[in-house]
């Protein structure tokens, strides 16, 4: 398969950046989107041009490093998949593909398609943890948690922190991410002691980082590779309003 790529190139955080066009030829339909970019990079290196910078690590949809806006959709057109798990067979031969970095004030572009997502880490540092003494693992059946609750908590904990929710949100809001992090701890007994303080601190941090505010358009849910439901945002709102009223 052959494609025409329109890609955002930016030398450094200070550089203004621009879109550049590249053809890529002889792409196998079984390649992932990142492997297709590898082909492009090899081509660029051979020609003596600067290869394209993009983030990746596990390439199996679990680390959340890959972060590409493909034709205006975070992680591309396939539902419930990260860009590394998106295969070229989902496109048509000869397609033009526009690839951009996540766009948000809180995610400054470092180079080409690589953005700084440490704002998300700082939200977690503000309260996305439980304070317990470490030591030997507790007895597995010491704390009983119903199947329903543990599954709900796991659904929220599935968040890999890729930032697609922010990237796709019309307001660059990080509420789906923060909601997932707040919810999985609020649901479990281990999260109870710091429950109220946690949600307040995490939301305060999220706001400070310059993310936008959710307007319930649910673009985040549509692109989330882990299909995290926006009902967690309602849960976070509930947690916050409860924490504020006590």
């Amino acid at each position, binding site marked *: 398969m052959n494609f025409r790529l*329109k890609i*955002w190139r930016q030398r450094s955080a200070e550089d203004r950046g621009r*879109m550049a066009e590249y053809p890529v030829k002889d792409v196998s339909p079984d390649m992932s989107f990142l492997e297709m970019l590898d082909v492009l990079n090899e081509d660029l290196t051979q020609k003596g041009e600067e290869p394209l910078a993009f983030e990746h690590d596990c390439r199996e949809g679990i680390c959340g490093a890959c972060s590409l*806006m493909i*034709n*205006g*959709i975070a992680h591309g057109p396939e539902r419930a998949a990260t860009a590394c798990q998106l295969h070229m067979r989902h496109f048509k031969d000869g397609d033009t593909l*526009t690839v*951009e970095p996540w*766009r*948000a*004030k*809180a995610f400054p572009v470092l180079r080409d398609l690589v953005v700084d997502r440490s704002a998300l880490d700082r939200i977690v540092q503000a309260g996305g943890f439980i304070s317990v003494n470490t030591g030997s693992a507790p007895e597995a059946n010491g704390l009983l948690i119903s199947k329903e609750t543990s599954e709900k908590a796991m659904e929220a904990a599935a968040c890999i922190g890729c930032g697609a929710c922010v990237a*796709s949100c*019309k*307001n*660059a*809001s990080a*509420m789906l991410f923060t909601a997932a992090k707040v919810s999985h701890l609020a649901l479990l007994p281990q999260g109870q002691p710091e429950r109220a303080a946690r949600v*307040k601190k995490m*939301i*305060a941090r*999220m*706001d400070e980082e*310059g*993310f*936008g*505010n*959710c*307007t*319930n*358009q*649910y*673009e985040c*849910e*549509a*692109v989330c590779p882990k299909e995290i*439901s*926006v*009902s967690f*945002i*309602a*849960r*976070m*709102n*509930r*947690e*916050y*309003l*409860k924490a*504020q009223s006590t």
Partner: protein
Amino acid sequence: MCKEFLGSSVGRKAVVGVTGFILFGFVVVHTLGNLQIFLGRDPLNAYAYKLQSLPWLLWPARVFLLAVLLVHLWISLWLAVENRRARPTPYVFKDTVQATLASRTMVMTGLIILLFIVYHLLHFTFGATNPEFFHLTDAKGRHDVYAMVVLSYRNYWISGTYLLAMFFLCLHLSHGVSSIPQSLGWNDERWDPLFKWAGRAAALVIFMGNSSMPLAAVVGILK
């Protein structure tokens, strides 16, 4: 606490939700009141007379609603400005997966409704735009609201303006009403579809109720 609450995204969203709910409640009551026009001249004029004769109820209600409206407007615009700033560099290729048209045009539809409210008050409350219909009295000597409304709506420009405004109101409510449970944290996966459709249905019912009046006047059902 108030400063922290109003400074936070979630707190302000809740304020927009609560004020929106109150304003929606007003729209429902206002629509029901107006629909009495179909009962005839006498019941409508009697209803208007009754309201006017209760100034201790009417004026606090007006002041309260105006305050609610201003808070709704102020907080929503504050959030909207922040939202614009949160993405200084736009995408070259823009796409939307599931955000509705209504959800993407809330600021615009909201501001159109604001303009409409100003016109609507000038028209029917202050009698500034069509004074010729405003000073009529009925057989019992009361302000003839019925005649004022029907004669106004016979003008295609006026009824057209009202219909258009109701379309924007419907669009605004269809997203706004469905969003209230989400912003106030009552929503969850089970209830989400119900809230979504209930909000849209409510918006549609309001639209049909309110547009039935200008339409009825135009086609001559109301005389």
